[in-house]
């Protein structure tokens, strides 16, 4: 297994740690962006960006089901935007444990990050990436 974009994702090596995304925070204006950038896209200063861990949790901003797919993906599949707790609004996918059905996701719901293969296809099964699932899934609460 290879990580799709290793610079974007920190997979823990020690027990008890959880995976997270890696972004940048501007020391001058406080903006947080994902993925990492060396220059703040808002105040445009150079070398003010520091690496930050982010994206362990977020709120579902929007979601849809795609009924067509490029090679390497299988339709239907969820496509989502998530508002990360730290600020950025990012595109992501949904963990395979969620059935791809209307009503499984609801905008505004709390989400948490998981790491799994991009897709269960010959092209993408060996690539790991970040996805999101409803925060209460797999924690003993009703999904």
């Amino acid at each position: 297994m290879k990580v799709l974009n290793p610079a974007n994702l920190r997979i823990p090596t020690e027990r008890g740690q959880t995976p997270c995304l890696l972004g940048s925070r501007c020391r001058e204006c406080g903006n947080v962006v994902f993925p990492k950038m060396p220059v703040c896209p808002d105040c445009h200063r150079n070398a003010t960006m520091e690496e930050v861990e982010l994206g362990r949790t977020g709120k579902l901003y929007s979601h849809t089901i795609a009924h067509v797919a490029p090679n390497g993906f299988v339709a239907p599949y969820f496509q989502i935007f998530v508002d990360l707790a730290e600020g950025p609004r990012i595109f992501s996918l949904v963990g395979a444990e969620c059935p791809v059905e209307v009503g499984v996701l609801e905008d505004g719901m709390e989400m948490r990050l998981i790491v799994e293969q991009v897709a269960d296809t010959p092209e993408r099964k060996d690539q790991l990436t970040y996805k999101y699932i409803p925060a209460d899934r797999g924690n003993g609460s009703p999904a």
Partner: protein
Amino acid sequence: MREVAIIGVGAHPTGRFLDKSLKELAYPAIWDALNDAGVTPVEINVAYVGNSLGGLLTGQEGVRGQVVLQHSGITGIPIVNVENACASAMTALRGAWLEVASGAADVALAVGVEKMNVGDSARTIGALSAVSELDLADMGLQFTTSYAIHPKINLKARMQEYGWTRADFAKPAVKNSYNGSLNPLAQHRRKLTIEEIVQSRIVVDPLTLLMCSSISDGAAAAVVCSMDLAARLGSKSKVRIASCVLQSGVYRLPDDGRPDSATTSAFAAYEKAGIGPNDLDAIELHDAMAPAELMLYERLGLCAPGDGPKLIDDRITTLDGRLPVNPSGGLCSRGHPVGATGLLQICELVWQMRGEAGARQIEPRPKVTLAQNQGGLLLGQDSAVYGATILKS
């Protein structure tokens, strides 16, 4: 800056041409434009060739412009290759315009060409995904999705906010399919009804198949020169480029209050042309997905937020209306060969302004027109490219 005229335009029909290569698609468009302008290849000083997907889909990664133009007999001059996603051809036109406006060239050629039908639609969808930043494309973000739920447009949210329905989403496609039915160059020439559009299969919820532009091959070209030279050449057309604005997207934080980039680019074009949205007589705009037309009405300053469907209900933007939009049929009916679209829009507006649009001719002839174009996706919630060109006759 010198004033610049478009003195010739040409287009290849838009559709599915599996056996034709990029250069074969471009050749008739280029020669129609040259003949229309009354110039020969040796009079062209410089050329810009727009194309987006040719590297991935045909394998011709480099020098596509030189390959395409040599086939049409245009060699030995500066040829600039332009890739700017769905705004590639618009960007090529801007290059040609600047060459003439600056005085560097007297006659310049802009070409846009795209070949999307390669017998494998999943490969084409994959290539389209790659006009997004790779971090997005790698994750399987599709362009259709970007219209359905992307923060910059988010049609699902508009349904909540404005009470828009799927029938509202279908209205631009109904209007544009009628226009397309009158356009011999259009890819889809069948008039559609709201019912069949809403009931066609869902591609990416809430977008159905007939709300989406389809995979398309095509080409378009324009010859531009200085207004002085146009007079000396006795060109039949005196369509002037009043402004040609190209912008890139900005990194947006959620709800940061920055104005929309389609708005800022269009209003920059209005200002440079010394007009406002009320002065426009016709518009070709970027309806890659039909309901995007409703959002663009707002963003181009044509109506208040949420009022888009009314412009169609009240027959303002229909072919017989006060401000016809997408008389060609737009991207959904005329077709959207992505790297040619920007110049296909220009061709349509020039034909309309000259009174050469046949059965779909707008009456009275439009004198001030806008071509609005955009493309690509960046991380940070914006399209990569926005274009707005204003023509005056």
